[in-house]
C-alpha cells in the first residue's frame, strides 16, 4: 500500500522547468531511491514534499493527507523528516541540542510554560534521554556536548541523520547521504540506514549518486532526467534499462 503518492508534480523557476509532470508511489516501509543526473530535479522534489517549494501543478498525498494543503512547519508533525545535501544543522547548538531540535514536533510547551521551566522538566528529560540514545545508536554519544561547528563533514552527516530520526518519522528523506564519505564510511552508513529504518518501520526516500549504495540499499529505484521520470523498477531492472544507461549511467566504454 503506497504511503507517499506523488502525482503530476510540476515546478517552474522563471522560464526553467525544474519538474515536469513527475509521478511515482512509495510503499510503506520501502526504501526507494531517486537517481538521475545533476539538475534532474531530485532535490527540487524533496523541497516540494517538505513544502519549501510550491509546485505549479500536481498533488502529493502522504498517508491519506494532501501535503500541499499543510503549512510547512506542520510537515514534521505528520511524520516527515529529511536531511540536506549540504547539511542544515544549527551551528550555534551542541550536537545533542541539534538532535533535540529534531524532536521539536513531538514535544510541547510554548514560551509561557518554558519560561516557568518546571512544567517542561519531565519532557525535557525524556527528550534528552532519547536523543542520547539516538546518538549512541549512530556512535556519536561521546560528542554530545561538542559544538556542531568544527566537526568533520562525515560526522555532521550522521548528526543530521540522527536529527531526522529524532522526530520519529514515518517517512525519512535523505538527500545524498553518502557524498563526501569514503568507501568504508559509505558501507557503514548503508548498514546504519538499513537497520535503523527496518527496526523502526520507517519508509525511506533516498537521493544518491553513489550507485553501489543505491543498488544495495533500495528496493525500488525511480530514474529522473530533466524533471521527469524516465524509468522505475527494481535496481536490477533499472540497471539494464537502455534509456537509463544512455541518459545517466552511460554506455560501457
Amino acid at each position: 500500500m503506497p504511503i507517499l503518492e506523488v502525482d503530476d508534480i510540476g515546478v517552474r523557476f522563471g522560464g526553467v522547468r525544474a519538474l515536469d509532470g513527475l509521478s511515482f508511489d512509495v510503499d510503506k516501509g520501502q526504501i526507494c531511491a531517486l537517481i538521475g543526473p545533476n539538475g534532474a530535479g531530485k532535490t527540487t522534489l524533496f523541497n516540494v514534499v517538505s513544502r519549501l517549494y510550491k509546485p505549479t501543478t500536481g498533488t502529493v498525498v502522504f498517508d491519506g493527507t494532501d501535503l500541499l494543503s499543510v503549512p510547512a512547519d506542520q510537515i514534521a508533525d505528520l511524520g516527515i523528516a529529511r536531511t540536506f545535501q549540504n547539511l542544515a544543522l544549527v551551528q550555534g547548538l551542541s550536537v545533542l541540542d541539534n538532535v533535540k531540535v529534531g524532536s521539536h514536533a513531538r514535544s510541547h510547551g510554548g514560551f509561557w510554560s518554558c519560561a516557568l521551566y518546571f512544567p517542561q522538566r519531565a519532557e525535557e528529560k525524556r527528550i534528552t534521554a532519547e536523543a542520547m540514545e539516538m546518538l549512541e545508536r549512530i556512535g556519536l554519544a561521546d560528542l554530545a556536548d561538542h559544538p556542531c561547528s568544527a566537526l568533520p563533514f562525515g560526522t555532521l552527516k550522521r548528526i543530521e541523520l540522527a536529527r531526522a530520526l529524532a522526530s520519529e518519522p514515518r517517512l525519512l528523506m535523505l538527500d545524498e547521504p553518502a557524498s563526501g564519505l569514503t568507501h568504508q564510511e559509505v558501507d557503514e552508513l548503508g548498514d546504519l540506514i538499513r537497520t535503523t529504518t527496518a527496526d523502526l518501520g520507517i519508509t525511506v526516500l533516498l537521493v544518491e549518486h553513489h550507485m553501489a549504495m543505491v543498488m544495495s540499499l533500495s528496493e525500488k529505484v525511480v530514474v529522473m532526467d530533466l524533471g521527469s521520470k524516465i524509468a522505475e523498477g527494481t535496481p536490477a531492472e533499472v540497471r539494464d534499462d537502455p534509456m537509463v544507461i544512455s541518459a545517466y549511467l552511460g554506455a560501457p566504454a
Partner: protein
Amino acid sequence: MKSLRGVGPVQSVLWAIALVVLIVLPFTSAPFRVEQYITWMTIAVAAGGLNLLTGYNGQISVGHGALYGTGAYTVAILVTDAEWPLLPTVIAAAVVCFMVGVIIGLPALRIKGLYLALVTLAVATLFPLVIEQFSDLTGGSGGLTLTSEQLYRGSIRDRRVKWESPIDGLASDQWKYFIFLGISIVCFVVIAAIVKSRVGRSLVAIRDNETAAEVSGINVSRTKIITFGVSAGIAGIGGAMFALNKGQVNPTSFTLTLSIYLLVAVVLGGASTVIGPAIGAVIYGVFIDVIAPELPETLESATPLILGTLLVAQMLMAPSGIVGWFHDLTEKVSRRRQGGGKQDKNVDVTVTTHEVVAETDLETDPGGFHP
C-alpha cells in the same frame, strides 16, 4: 557553546562571590550609588530581553530603548493617573510592551538583518517625539513625576512616590535595591529557563538555519513574533523599574542613545549568553557613572571616543563578548589540565592524516561541559 548543564568549579566560586557582593553592596555604598546600581539593574534586565531577540534569535533591534521607555511611561501613567499600587504596574508594563513589541515585530516577518535594524532604529528615533506629541497624557518634554496620595502632615496629598522600608535598619534605598534585585533575578531566571528549553533551541535554530528549523516543525513566523513580544515585555519591565526607581520619567531619558546602550551591553557582555547582558550593563554603568566623572575635564568629552574605540576593538578581537571570552578561556585551561599532551598531539595529527583526526576528534573531551 555555552554550557547549560552543569557548572564547573570556577563558575560556582564566581557565582558565590557575585552573590555576596550583590548582598553587601547596598550596605557599603552611598545612597546615590545605590540608586545608580538600580539603574544598572534596569538596563541589565532590558538588555537581557534584547539578547533573547538579537543574540539568540538573530533579529537585530536598535529600538529597544523605545520599549524600555514605553514600560516606564506605562508605570508613570498608571501610578499617577490611575492610582495603581506600585508593583502591579510592573506586570502591566510587561503586558503593554509585549503587545507593542508584537506590533513592531510584524515587519520582521518580511524583512530581516540590517533592514530590521533600520526599522527599529526609526522606532527609537520616533519615540521621544511621540511622547512630546501626546503631551496631555505624557507631560510632554517636562515629563511626569510619579505621585500617589499620601498622608502628609495630617492630610492626604499627592506626593512623590516613596519606598518605605518595612524592616528596621534597612534604609529606603536599600529596601528598594533588594526589591529590584529580586525582580531582576526573576527576569534572568525566566530568560535562562526559556533559553535552555525547546523554545530556546528553536530560537537558535531560526537564527542559524531557518530551513533546518522549518523542516523540524518549528513555526518560524510565530516564533519570531512572540520572541519580539517577550523580548519587548522584558525590556518593558526594565523600563518600569527605571520609572519606579527615579520617581519620574522624561523623554530625554529614552532617546536613541539608550537603544545603543542596550545593544552595547548585550554585545560587550556576550550575545547569546544568559548572564552576558547583565555583565555588559554593569561594565557600561561603571564606565559611565564611576570612571567617566573621574576623568580630567579635557578627557571627559573623550568618553564616547573611548567607548567607540573599545566597541570596535572588541568586535574585531573578542566578538563573543566577555562571557564568551571567559568560556573559551576556562575551556582551554580545563582541556590543558585534563588532556595534558594529548591536546597538542591532536593539533599535530590534524595535518597528517584525516583518519586519525576523525578518531581523536571523537575521543577529545571538549572541556568541562560534560554532565
